[in-house]
């Protein structure tokens, strides 16, 4: 045979191998059918996975709880049913050579279950053997949250998760932390895996005018998500290697399942709404809620806004429209598919602003050979956001409108010629335009030649691009010739991830599970900042429209990380499990003297409730667990070497300037976590409790140490000198307080308590953001507000001010997440989820600036008395407190300071309220199932913080520090969703 022929024969054989299973559909054998219901209520369970362990046969239950598995060989067969949120169940049936055999499952509800599997770095692991806390956001939780993206889903979802919204413009990305802060310089965002493929976990650059970033994580539509697993600390993330110290989010999208094509349609309509803006004592709501007529600021200056909308307010309700259509199904031969498309339009509450997303997802699974499963998951998303200038921008909506007569947008057309005339609608001609495209493709091959051996190879490519524009048009009041900033950004993330696990029973009581694997990640960044100023005339400008064109920065980096791991788990009597593992990493960004980094871990899980002595009658499930593990964060490319920057000088001539002094001894920082806890379930699943204590210690922390400016390099250099401590408790309690055929009430409450403290950080106080008064200092939370403090805030006296005082933690130290679910008549579900963040602070820079401009209503009375005192009559001062005197001072050249405006931002937000009604079949007009849901998000906020929103922060100022600098607050939403299944 010629070489050519041999080659053809090979590919033909390969093709046959791949497609033979489709052609040879299982025709013979018997059929196993049955139903899956909830124990107690007998409610049919939709989407339960029913499988025959050891074979590739399986099916999922439909809306009526029914399932059917064909082609089952005769004999004694085990059948297993499992569904997240329920205790799995296994039964043995005798299957005849042909015909049908029925088996029914009645699953117990259990918020804590030790059966089933979770996904870890080594692949699937049994829950009972995992020695660390795992939290899951399941399908039901997703449906009732009224969330549209993962960020909203995570807010208030589970203890250990902190989500801060950052900004209220549609499309603004939030800050997500798992178990607080473990790094000062390298970011604290968790790693993100989607269907087993690692994707970029960062953010886009911020918009120059909008001053917020976009989070690619939010490109995944909530409707497409099946469940999310949250892996919180380094003890659990060790095998994920360098960069995993911020935790891991595993997102699993909906997959196809065997059966006829089932169509799902979800249509949402609703609106966004903004309540009162700013301090409740301000009747005009920072001149947003009311802009009509003649208005007055604190010193009596009168103004009118000739462009105030006819409604008398800048605010209106913004429409929301969402559509998601999906189909899923599969053949008995193991080919499954899930295809969905979604469109999401959300407009904001100001004259301009909106987010428009379009997404398409296709998940395909097939089993081309015995033991081999192939899953291909692809998604493409296009997002466009339009907005207004915001935050610390001279064209910003909040900056100008809230200043009243002090707006930069003076104008004409006011009815009263004696007052200051404002034309704020001009500021809405400055446009923020962000367009992103996000493409993820992943192929996962799982090969299980025998029960004992599982091999998994996942290869993924994540492509993000963004075109981020800020256009100040020709004819602008402030910049008459106009200007344009454009950032072209692209992030590519290629990963290959292999894991192999071999399990065996070595003696009657002993089992082992050996895993080895490796990962390679390649991360590429292309980012170009461009600017064009001075347009020739009106029209839609491009970068070449301006007379002055600038390339402000170009960033192109490629970084590689490769690592290997090995793990051995030993089980005793299927009750006690001890796991040891090690991860070794190399990263091409390291300094020259660093080679492989080694991260060890050890964990144990003891299912004490399976011991004979355990009182299972009362507490049916109890797993005690403990783990110690390391994870790390790598410095950036070239952080180790001395570099110079090419610049222009002498009016356009090439030149060099110093960039970074360099540190050849640079290496990754390491976080070691000790975690202890238990998972318990009692009283027939009515009460479940999960508890974890964690103690993280980051050592060799990468600290940007200020270099002596007299050495010629003005900035700081990363040095492995710091120590950070971060410990806390997490509690999740779920209780079915009332269980009846007619009414079922479940209450839940989560609590995270966090203690963050900086150790020695190079013998210095680290400045994170000086204007935000945010620092890292030994003995204080990371990061903290620090600066001038009024020591006698409530005294009616002049302020006694002391320097170098601790003013508070920037992030919350305790988060309560209470929730309640009420199911009535098995048809109507009411769900509420709240979040109460305590211990955090924010810098109310709107108060700071507007008080100086006599446009901060809470200062009006104090400032009037201070003016009176300046004119010689001090009688009014007896009722002005020291804090008011410091904050509201009219002698602005002396005592103003941002420090005085650092405020506790404790808040309670009612994150979601939903009422879902399952529609009776007679109203479904041909559909198999249907429901209608009325939902609201962020409906109510309670806080003593006097700024506009306790959650917001200008992300262009700094992404680690928090400063509420004229950031437009978050709005609430009301939606109605109709879901139909065909």
């Amino acid at each position: 045979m010629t070489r050519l022929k041999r080659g053809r024969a090979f590919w033909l054989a390969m093709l046959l191998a791949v497609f033979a299973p489709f052609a040879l559909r299982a025709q013979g054998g018997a059929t196993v059918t049955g139903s899956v219901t909830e124990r107690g209520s007998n409610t049919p369970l939709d989407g339960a996975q029913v499988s025959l362990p050891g074979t590739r046969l399986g099916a999922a239950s439909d809306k009526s709880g029914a399932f059917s598995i064909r082609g089952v060989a005769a004999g004694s067969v085990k059948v297993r049913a499992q569904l997240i949120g329920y205790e799995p169940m296994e039964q043995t049936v005798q299957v005849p050579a042909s015909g049908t055999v029925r088996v029914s499952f009645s699953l117990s509800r259990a918020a804590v279950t030790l059966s089933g599997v979770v996904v870890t770095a080594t692949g699937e692991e049994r829950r009972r053997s995992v020695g660390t806390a795992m939290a899951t956001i399941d399908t039901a939780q997703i449906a009732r949250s009224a969330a549209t993206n993962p960020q909203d889903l995570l807010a208030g979802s589970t203890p250990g998760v902190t989500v801060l919204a950052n900004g209220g413009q549609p499309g603004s990305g939030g800050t997500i932390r798992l178990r607080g802060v473990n790094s000062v310089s390298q970011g604290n965002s968790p790693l993100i895996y989607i269907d087993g493929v690692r994707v970029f976990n960062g953010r886009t650059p911020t918009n120059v005018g909008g001053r917020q970033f976009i989070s690619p994580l939010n490109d995944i539509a909530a409707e497409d998500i099946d469940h999310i697993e949250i892996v919180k600390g380094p003890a659990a993330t060790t095998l994920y290697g360098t960069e995993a110290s911020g935790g891991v989010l595993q997102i699993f999208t909906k997959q196809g399942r065997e059966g006829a094509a089932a169509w799902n349609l979800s249509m949402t309509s609703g609106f966004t709404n903004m309540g009162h803006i700013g301090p409740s004592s301000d009747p005009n709501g920072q001149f947003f809620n009311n802009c009509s007529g003649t208005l007055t600021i604190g010193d009596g200056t009168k103004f009118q806004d000739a462009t105030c909308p006819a409604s008398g307010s800048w605010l209106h309700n913004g429409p929301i429209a969402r559509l998601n259509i999906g189909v899923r199904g599969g053949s008995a031969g193991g080919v499954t598919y899930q295809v969905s498309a979604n469109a999401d339009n959300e407009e904001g509450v100001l004259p301009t602003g909106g987010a428009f997303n379009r997404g398409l997802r296709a998940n395909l699974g097939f089993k081309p050979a015995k033991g081999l499963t192939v899953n291909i998951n692809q998604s493409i998303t296009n997002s466009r956001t339009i907005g207004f200038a915001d935050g610390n921008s001279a064209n910003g909506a909040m900056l100008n409108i809230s200043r009243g007569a002090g707006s930069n947008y003076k104008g004409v057309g006011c009815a009263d010629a004696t007052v200051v005339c404002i034309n704020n609608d001009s500021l809405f001609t400055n446009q923020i335009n962000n367009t992103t495209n996000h493409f993820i493709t992943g192929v996962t091959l799982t090969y299980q030649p025998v029960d004992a051996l599982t091999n998994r190879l996942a290869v993924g490519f994540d492509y993000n691009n963004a075109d981020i524009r800020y256009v100040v048009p020709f004819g602008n009041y402030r910049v008459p010739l106009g200007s344009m900033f454009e950032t072209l950004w692209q992030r590519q993330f290629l990963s290959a991830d292999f894991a192999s696990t071999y399990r065996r029973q070595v003696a009657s009581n002993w089992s082992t599970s050996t895993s080895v694997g490796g990962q390679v990640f390649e991360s590429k960044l292309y980012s170009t900042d461009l600017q064009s100023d001075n347009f020739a005339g009106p029209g839609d400008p491009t970068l070449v429209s301006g007379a002055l064109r600038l390339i402000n920065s170009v960033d192109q980096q490629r970084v590689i990380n490769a690592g290997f791991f090995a793990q051995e788990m030993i089980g005793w009597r299927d009750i006690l499990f001890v796991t040891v593992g090690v991860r070794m990493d190399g990263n091409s960004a390291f300094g020259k003297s660093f080679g492989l980094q080694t991260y060890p871990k050890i964990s144990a899980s003891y299912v004490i409730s399976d011991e004979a002595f355990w009182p299972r009658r009362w507490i049916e499930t109890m797993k005690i667990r403990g783990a110690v593990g390391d994870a790390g964060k790598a410095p950036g490319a070239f952080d180790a070497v001395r570099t110079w920057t090419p610049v222009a000088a002498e009016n356009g001539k090439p030149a060099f300037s110093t960039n970074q002094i360099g540190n050849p001894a640079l290496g990754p920082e390491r976080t070691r976590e000790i975690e202890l806890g238990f998972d318990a379930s009692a009283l027939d699943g009515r009460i479940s409790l999960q508890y974890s204590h964690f103690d993280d210690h980051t050592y060799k922390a990468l600290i940007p140490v200020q270099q002596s400016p007299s050495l010629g390099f003005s900035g700081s250099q990363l040095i492995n000198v710091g120590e950070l401590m971060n410990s806390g408790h997490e509690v999740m309690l779920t209780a079915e307080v009332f269980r009846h055929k007619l009414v079922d009430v479940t209450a839940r409450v989560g609590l995270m308590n966090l203690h963050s403290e900086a150790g020695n950080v190079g013998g210095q106080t680290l400045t994170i953001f000086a204007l935000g008064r945010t620092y890292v200092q030994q003995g204080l939370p990371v990061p903290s507000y620090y600066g001038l403090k009024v020591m006698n805030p409530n005294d009616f006296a002049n302020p006694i001010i002391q320097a170098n005082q601790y003013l508070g933690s920037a992030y919350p130290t305790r988060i309560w997440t209470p929730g309640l679910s009420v199911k009535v008549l098995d048809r109507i579900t009411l769900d509420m989820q709240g979040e109460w963040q305590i211990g955090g602070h924010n810098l109310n820079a709107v108060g700071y600036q507007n008080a100086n401009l006599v446009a901060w209503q809470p200062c009006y009375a104090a400032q009037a008395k201070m003016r009176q005192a300046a004119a010689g009559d001090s009688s009014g001062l007896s009722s002005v407190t020291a804090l008011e005197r410091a904050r509201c001072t009219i002698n602005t050249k002396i005592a103003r300071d941002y420090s005085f405006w650092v405020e506790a931002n404790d808040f309670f937000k009612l994150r979601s309220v939903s009422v879902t009604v399952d529609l009776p079949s007679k109203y479904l007009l041909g559909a198999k199932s249907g429901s209608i849901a009325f939902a609201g998000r962020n409906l109510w906020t309670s806080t003593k913080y006097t700024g506009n929103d306790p959650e917001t922060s200008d992300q262009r100022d700094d992404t680690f520090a928090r400063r509420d600098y004229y950031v437009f607050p978050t709005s609430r939403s009301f939606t109605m969703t109709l879901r139909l299944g065909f």
Partner: protein
Amino acid sequence: MTTLRNFGRHSIGVIAVLCAACNMTVTNPGPLQDAQLNTPTAMPALVNGMSGDLSFALGNYIDRGGLASGELAEAGNFSAEQQFFIGVIRPEDVNPDWSNMQQARWSAENGLDRMKSVLGANFEKNADTPRAYLYGAFANRMLGENVCTAVIDGGPAQSDSVYFVRAESLFTRAYTLAAALNNTTVANAALGGRASVRAWQGNWTGAVTDAALVPNTFVYNAIFGTGTARENNDLANQTITRRETTVFGTVYASIFKDLRTPWDTIKTTSGAVQTGQDGKTKFFRQTKYTSLSSNVPLVKGAEMLMLRAEAALRNGDIAGMTTLINQQRALYAGLTAVTAPATTAAAWTLLQAERGSVVWLEGRRLWDLRRWNVEGTSSFLTGRSKCVPISTNELASNPNLSK
């Protein structure tokens, strides 16, 4: 057992394939590694960089220096600038200025060492070498005139006069090499610079000798540009693009039609005088620098005349002083001659006002007011900060500074 062997084979095989696919090279084009500058072809850009660092430091400082010395008044919302304006210069507010000035000095001095090493015997013949010396000298002069304490390359605190000593030495080298290469511009700039630092060290005779050699119309500038933001004249940014500082409230607000201290006003649509960024203070816009690419003089013949005038006054020669002042005034259209003051005190008042107008918004006034305050001929800085202290960043990071 076969399964276990398969397991091992599979694992090693797949890991090997993954590894072979890796090209572990990190790439980050753009920043240059230090060693890449060690080539003669990199020298012109290295020297341009010295000029750029000097302009960047000066362009960013003249606004705050002007606020601290009464050349400008605050009309914005920046907290550090408000402190400068009321005469409080705090270590936490001077981090940018301190590091920019130090970077300008270090990049020139370190660059000269690199040039000697890379160019070898050609060092003194290289056309760029005199400029490099000149930038190092001006950077040292800027530090000497504005900071309270000298710190060199992470070393201990020293007398601020150290900078003038270094500046004089560097000006001398610049002058010598420029003269040898027939580079008149750099030679005159070096002479003018040396004249000033000689005066500041008390060597008025030497200062007058140098100053007299500089043509009256000579100007040597720090260069600014619009090509990149780093090349911008930041004072123009703060006063032309924005309205952060104003001439209103300074002595220059009552000087009209003087080309040395020009300013104007802008009217709002209602006809009122535009206010500053703070919405309150009247905005009188300086028009000495009208664009982001307006250059800032480092040496001027007019200033040389004022140095000579001051030397004359120090010798009690009021008539001689007046003659030199009038030569200086004659350089500017529209200015008439002044008559000789009757008293020494009046002579000092005239001289200080004239010198103030000549070097207005050039980052020089704080030093003049400081030395005259020490000598008792000016009280403007009494009760106010007189110089830029060591910055908090330097204090926090330099182990040789006592804490």
